[in-house]
């Protein structure tokens, strides 16, 4: 292994978490890299070869990948650690599913309302499973959700099955509870308010008023419920959201890519996303990711701001999905200063390059001059184009395909250009496909005024698609409903 040779020169990895898994990961990673394992709470047994900071609290994280400065309060004393990367284990979520399961053992059929707010796909999946199981035992289940999440493997099929079996999904719903025994007024006890300070709460024998705008009802739906559970994912695991916020890694979107956050160098081991990994898989995956971060052969930043051309319009600063752009370099432009891409934090997605209205961001990439009518995101479209034998111009993300790139690719006599992007919600840079689609929509609108109208077609693909199917969609006018 290359990293063993210069072990001493590597900045350490901070492992943050008090679970058993975090302990095992710290020990395993510690065999190859210097590790600091920190957590709130007491130390039980000293693992060999790693630095342990028990009774710690994260205070502040500054810097970027390879050179983070982490301020911590350890045993009431402020300390500062310089680390190369961080692996964070959030507190485990409250175990709602097992509480629900025990209620299902009742002898008579019950009416149950299970309200899930801001839950991660792992919790969502588990609770839909539970609802389905209870339903098959003869109980009537109402699942009140803020969104029907299907983006985990098998999610679509699971929700479909639950619906067909009779589990009722309710979206955009406000719950009010009235205790059947004390008979309080509806509206005085809104379930979401009650759980504002707690992750999970259970009620017995309630009348539930469901004000559901998506059902287009003027009056609330009233349910006599034997059991009501409200579960707020944002509160589950008391320090989860706070820790993410402190790390600058908080996100509303669903991270499809395991362990990565939008702040480079900070990895989050969160079994809530996608299919859970086994301990071996988790450790193996973390090793690979840490290797790529710590091994020093980072990709050079492919995008650079030319300070003299920067108009300080803040477009790059506002649109960067990884918060990698900041104000900070001197320039010979009108303002004497320009924006700067923090190379340690840049994922080279090229969003800034595509959106810069002053064309002040250059792409340091070998330019392929081969004429083509297909442009593609290299993550989703790249492998498929190769397999299908189609020449296309590849970009690091669909979000990096700018309006002028699209127009430059145009060949005389061609009336159709195809761009391959990831499917919605699958972009590893947040919403590259969505950004591209808005650009294409505007261009297509402008194209309608041309004497000989031309058209750009966006085709959503994923690496699992069949190459011959993609070939057909690219080469013919059948976009497959995308």
């Amino acid at each position, binding site marked *: 292994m290359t990293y063993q040779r210069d072990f001493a020169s590597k900045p350490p990895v901070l492992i943050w978490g008090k679970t058993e898994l975090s302990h095992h990961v710290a020990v395993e990673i510690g065999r190859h890299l210097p590790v600091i394992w920190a957590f709130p709470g007491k130390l039980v047994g000293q693992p060999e070869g790693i630095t342990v900071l028990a009774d710690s609290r994260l205070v502040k994280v500054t810097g970027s990948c390879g050179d983070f400065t982490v301020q911590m309060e350890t045993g009431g004393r402020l300390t500062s650690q310089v680390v190369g990367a961080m692996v964070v284990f959030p507190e485990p979520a409250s175990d709602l599913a097992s509480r629900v399961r025990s209620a299902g053992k009742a002898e008579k059929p019950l009416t149950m309302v299970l309200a899930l707010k801001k839950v991660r796909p792992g919790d969502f999946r588990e609770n839909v499973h539970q609802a389905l199981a209870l339903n098959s035992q003869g109980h009537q289940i109402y699942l009140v959700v803020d969104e029907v999440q299907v983006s985990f493997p098998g999610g679509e099929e699971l929700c479909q099955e639950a619906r067909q079996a009779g589990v009722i999904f309710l979206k955009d719903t406000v719950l009010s509870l009235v205790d059947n025994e004390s008979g309080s007024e509806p509206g005085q006890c809104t379930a979401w308010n009650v759980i504002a300070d707690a992750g999970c709460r259970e009620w017995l024998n309630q009348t539930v008023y469901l004000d559901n705008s998506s059902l287009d009802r003027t009056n609330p739906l009233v349910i006599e419920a034997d059991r009501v559970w409200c579960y707020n994912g944002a509160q589950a695991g008391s320090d989860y959201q706070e820790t993410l916020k402190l790390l600058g890694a908080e996100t509303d979107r669903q991270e499809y890519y395991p362990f990565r956050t939008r702040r480079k160098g900070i990895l989050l081991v969160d079994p809530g996303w996608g299919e859970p990994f086994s301990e071996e898989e988790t450790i193996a995956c973390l090793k690979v990711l840490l290797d790529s971060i710590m091994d020093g052969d980072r990709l050079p930043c492919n995008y650079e701001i030319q300070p003299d051309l920067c108009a300080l*319009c*803040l*477009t790059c600063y506002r649109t960067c999905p990884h918060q990698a752009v900041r104000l900070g370099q001197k320039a010979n432009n009108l303002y004497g200063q320009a924006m700067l891409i923090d190379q340690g934090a840049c994922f080279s997605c090229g969003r800034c390059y595509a959106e*810069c*209205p*002053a064309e002040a961001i250059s792409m340091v990439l070998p330019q392929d001059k081969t004429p083509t009518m297909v442009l593609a995101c290299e993550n989703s479209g790249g492998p498929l184009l190769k397999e299908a034998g189609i020449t296309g111009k590849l970009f690091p993300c669909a979000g990096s395909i700018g309006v002028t790139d699209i127009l430059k690719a*145009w060949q005389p006599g061609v009336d159709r250009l195809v761009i391959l992007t990831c499917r919605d919600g699958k972009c590893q840079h947040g919403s590259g496909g969505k950004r591209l689609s808005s650009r294409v929509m505007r261009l297509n609108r402008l194209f309608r*005024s041309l*004497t000989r109208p031309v058209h750009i077609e966006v085709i959503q693909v994923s690496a699992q698609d069949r190459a011959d199917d993609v070939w057909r969609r690219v080469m013919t006018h059948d976009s497959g409903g995308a």
Partner: protein
Amino acid sequence: MIVGELKALSDIKSMIKGCRKVLVVGCGGCVTVCQSGGLQEAETLARLLALDSPDMTVESLAVPRQCEWEFLEQVCPVIGGYEIVVSTACGIGVQAMNEYFRDFQTVPALNTRFLGMPVRHGLFEERCQACGDCMLHLTGGICPVARCSKNLMNGPCGGSQNGKCEISREIDCAWQLIYDRLKELNQLERLLVLQPPKDWSQSRDGGLRRMAREDVMLDDRE
């Protein structure tokens, strides 16, 4: 900043009808920031026009500010080869180009809309009408000239409903905003002071406006 918006492509095409060599000149100032007329938009427009008429030569460039003679000098070396110039600057840039390059016609590619700011990325809103007699200190920093549909100076009209203006549910009533802001500042008593008629001679009604800083002006010998 000055906020502009690209004209319909068909309008721009009709302005340059019959010309074979077209230069699109962008501006690095306000219209770059409002995403309508910087180098990227100038290049986009040039490529669209070229795509429309393959026999037409269309090139693009941008200057730091189209409203300054010194920056227009940068266009001198290239303009000779073209028949017409399309400017993606605001109306000031278009006029500066026409005044500076007397032998060429410069036509506007943008409609100059207003003086405003991005309230969020991509959404611009008017904030100032350049009335020449600022009264923001009296109204909690919210301009009744730019933001009240009727330019009222002494409180709202009867069309203020639930904080919105009667002309659209999308538009906040400026006087509701002023009331809320003055309340925040603990200055509600300001609303009891009657505002006399405003000095509109400083606004557009007094003819072409000029502002002179004699202390910084250079005379012809300098």
